[in-house]
């Protein structure tokens, strides 16, 4: 149903454009005609994106019918309809190629248009044989005919919703798992929206007098006034409800819904996908999603994503990937160098130099420093400043070893930790950047699905308790693991703390937010609580970007990695926080740590 509402935004934009042009004297034909009220598939095709339908009809449908009609008019119409839908699919895919430079060939897209084409063909054959109801004005609508029309429209609406959900599904198994929701529970909320839709369809199906597109000058005066009065009253009602002081009187739930409808920000789902793109460089932006699509269409075709920079190689183990040792890349942001140990860092010896505080830094792409050149990462800036501002020359020096790897999820940091501990750090800093719970859970589901051995006992136990196995699809796997998400993250954090302390080092947890506010913030309080519970020294930098212009501290609208300015902010704040907790974090270097 959400997809139907998404298209409502698209059709609304069309109506606004036509309306504005009408103010200047341009009377364009209508672009959509209440497609929510389509009572059949042919009716749906006629009502939705009329310009497209007219274009296909004129340029392809009628010429094809005329070309094929020696086969019989009905056969010609069927063939022409199928070809029109094939061409519609093709032209949609071509549009993607034109805008994005990549070919859109996904089975959901193909099947969507095939299924829609087939149902329209079947419907057309029915109409050819039995016709359909038409009238020149208001006919005598009975309760029975109104009831039947409402049911047909309701059924058409739900079929299209199902088809649309299929079109936007990431996978067939993911779509199939949606059907498990039919098992209930049927709460008030779950039934409310279908009931609202039914009511809207019922009211909308009540016949109005007159033909479509009738000019105002040919309408009778009462009908003209009534139409305008309804529009004005409806607009005033919508405007009134949109005022915060008014919708807050309607209860918290209604107020939140109205507020989100008014918001120009991405929806929760879009934001999650953009965040997922930040973490996983998701390239398959929802093909049908206009808001997120608008963000991604601004992205240049030659934009260098962190995942496409060739930085990583496969390891074949639980971590799956690591940075390529001795890799150097000239990026638009500066040189990106990976040392012989596979760290994005200057070279270090494995043995800790004497009289040195060695800090191992664990994290993902923001920690590694995607988007800035060598020496500009917050890690490098903090290291430089710590050494520069030492109390005396004899005071311990500082080394920060950057073990950040793009795309690493919390469980993968356990592998990074094992590597880091071989460098005998005094301090291990784990940097969390949001969505720790859901990312830890989804990564565990992923490794089970891929049949990757899990070398950590507590995580294996959780998988066993969840009853998860490799045969389950992504959606089912996540659903099994979600009740254990806190256990998964706590087990991960606990291991980091325990192993760090066992090696004589101090475990520090730094929460580094994303530059953009979003639904990822929902997990922050629980994440911080778990970090404290596990025994970390916690540094909460949730407000490090407060008061900053987002555009000034991130790489681009479609890439939320902090830029040079962003790293400077992080470095400054992290330095201050480390100084505040100096006594706790930087223990005397004379304390031995295991190699």
């Amino acid at each position: 149903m959400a997809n139907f509402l998404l298209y409502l935004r698209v059709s609304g934009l069309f109506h606004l454009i036509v309306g504005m042009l009408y103010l200047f004297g341009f009377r364009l034909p209508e672009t959509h005609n209440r497609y929510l009220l389509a009572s059949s598939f042919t009716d749906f095709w006629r009502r939705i994106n009329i310009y497209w339908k007219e274009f296909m009809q004129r340029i392809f449908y009628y010429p094809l019918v005329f070309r094929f009609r020696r086969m019989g008019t009905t056969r010609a119409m069927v063939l022409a309809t199928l070809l029109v839908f094939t061409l519609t699919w093709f032209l949609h895919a071509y549009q993607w190629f034109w805008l994005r430079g990549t070919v859109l060939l996904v089975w959901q897209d193909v099947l969507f248009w095939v299924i829609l084409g087939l149902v329209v063909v079947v419907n057309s054959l029915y109409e050819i044989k039995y016709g359909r109801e038409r009238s020149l004005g208001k006919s005598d609508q009975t309760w029975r005919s109104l009831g039947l029309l409402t049911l047909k429209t309701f059924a058409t609406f739900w079929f299209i919703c199902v088809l649309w959900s299929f079109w936007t599904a990431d996978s067939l198994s993911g779509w199939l798992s949606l059907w498990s929701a039919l098992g209930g529970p049927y709460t008030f909320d779950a039934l409310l929206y279908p009931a609202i839709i039914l009511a809207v369809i019922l009211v909308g199906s009540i016949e109005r007098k007159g033909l479509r597109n009738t000019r105002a000058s040919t309408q009778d005066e009462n009908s003209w006034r009534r139409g305008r009065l309804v529009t004005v009253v409806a607009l005033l009602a919508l405007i009134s409800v949109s005022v915060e002081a008014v919708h807050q009187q309607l209860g918290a739930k209604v107020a939140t819904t109205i507020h989100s409808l008014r918001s120009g920000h991405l929806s929760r789902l879009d934001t999650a996908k953009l965040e997922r793109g930040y973490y996983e460089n998701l390239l398959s932006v929802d093909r049908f999603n206009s808001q997120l699509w608008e963000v991604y269409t601004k992205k240049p075709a030659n934009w260098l994503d962190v995942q496409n920079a060739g930085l990583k190689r496969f390891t074949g183990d639980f971590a799956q990937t690591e940075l390529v040792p001795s890799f150097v890349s000239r990026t638009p942001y500066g040189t990106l160098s990976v040392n012989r140990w596979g760290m994005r860092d200057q070279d270090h010896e494995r043995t800790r130099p004497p009289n040195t505080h060695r800090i191992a830094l664990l994290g993902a792409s923001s920690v590694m420093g995607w988007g800035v050149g060598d020496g500009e990462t917050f890690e490098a800036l903090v290291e430089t400043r710590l050494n520069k501002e030492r109390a005396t020359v004899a005071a311990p020096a500082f080394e920060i070893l950057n073990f950040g790897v793009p795309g690493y999820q919390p469980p993968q940091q356990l592998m990074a930790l094992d590597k880091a501990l071989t460098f005998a750090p005094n301090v291990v800093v784990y940097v969390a950047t949001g969505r720790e719970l859901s990312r830890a859970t989804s990564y565990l589901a992923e490794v089970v699905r891929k049949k990757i051995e899990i070398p950590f006992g507590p995580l294996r136990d959780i998988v066993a308790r969840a009853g998860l196995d490799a045969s389950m699809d992504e959606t089912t796997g996540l659903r099994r693991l979600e009740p254990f998400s806190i256990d998964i993250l706590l087990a991960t954090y606990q291991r980091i703390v325990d192993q760090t302390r066992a090696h004589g080092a101090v475990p520090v947890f730094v929460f580094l937010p994303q530059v953009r506010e979003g639904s990822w913030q929902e997990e922050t309080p629980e994440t911080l609580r778990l970090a404290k519970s596990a025994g970390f020294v916690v540094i909460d930098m949730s407000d490090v970007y407060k008061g900053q212009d987002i555009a000034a501290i991130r790489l681009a609208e479609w890439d939320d990695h902090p830029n040079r300015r962003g790293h400077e902010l992080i470095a400054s704040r992290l330095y201050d926080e480390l100084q505040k907790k100096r006594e706790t974090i930087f223990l005397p270097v004379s304390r031995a740590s295991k190699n």
Partner: protein
Amino acid sequence: MTDDIEGAVKRFILMEFLPGEDPAELTDATPLITGGVLDSIATLKVVMFIEETFGISLQAHEVDSEHLDTIGQIAQLVRAKKS
């Protein structure tokens, strides 16, 4: 002759697509395609009717609201084709 074309087309449309409707409501200027009375399937049926009845042949580009939106326009097209 003038009445024959308009009358024949009107009778066909009433019988095929608007049974039970008041014939007086269907005038020579009633918008059929833009008014939503004729969709593509119905328009093609009208095309077949006028081709068979009046012995003319239409082209694909003539099947649109500029040529077939009203009974008056249909009659005008038929006359143009026959002359």
